């Protein structure tokens, strides 16, 4: 797996065992897109919420709205933030599609994209706001 190193002010830190959870979720859903929410605090991921992609599609995702409502409530009650939103690209690069950019309604969260199109999986993170895409550094921590 390749995790790109990018310099910049924005950064997300994810413990390796949580990144593994995300990657295995993407594998399980393959060839459809997997999606989920990473809850955390101050840019550090603390919990993975694997969500249901109600579109069951290899080119599209939509998180089940009731599940999203419930998870967002739990995150709020735990005093955490939606640090990141992730989804997989079974056949495309790890870069936001036009649809990803158009439907990025959470600019304070980082969008993580996992590409499964190459033999080596690729994980990248982006800040998306009003059509502007900026790559964000992902730091994988050991604990």
């Amino acid at each position: 797996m390749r995790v790109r190193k990018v310099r910049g002010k924005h950064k997300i830190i994810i413990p390796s065992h949580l990144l593994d959870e995300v990657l295995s979720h993407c594998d399980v859903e393959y060839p459809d897109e997997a999606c989920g929410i990473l809850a955390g605090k101050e840019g550090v991921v603390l919990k993975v919420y694997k969500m249901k992609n109600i579109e069951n599609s290899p080119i599209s995702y939509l998180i089940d709205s009731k599940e999203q409502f419930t998870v967002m409530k739990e995150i709020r009650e735990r005093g955490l933030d939606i640090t990141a939103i992730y989804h997989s690209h079974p056949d495309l690069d790890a870069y936001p599609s036009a649809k990803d950019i158009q439907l990025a309604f959470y600019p304070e969260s980082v969008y993580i994209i996992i590409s499964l199109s190459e033999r080596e999986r690729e994980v990248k993170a982006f800040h998306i706001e009003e059509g502007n895409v900026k790559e964000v550094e992902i730091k994988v921590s050991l604990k």
Partner: protein
Amino acid sequence: MSVKVRIPTPLQKLTQGQDVVECKPGMIIELIHELDNRFPGIGERISEGGKIRRFVNIYLNEEDIRFIKAEETEVKEGDEVSIIPAIAGG
């Protein structure tokens, strides 16, 4: 002023950072008008031509208003309304 409305983080810049706003009871569409009067610009982020936008979900307490009476859902004193943009892409 007694309905609690949860504003999603992306719209909080329009509500001066407030995550919860108190509104008057009434229909959902009236509540959106009230919000837009108080926080100009928020209305068009939630609805278009009197209809809730496709990628915006609104919950009355624990229930999606699309399964009640959509924009015409009545909100009573003590209720909680949550405005939640969808998470979607391709």
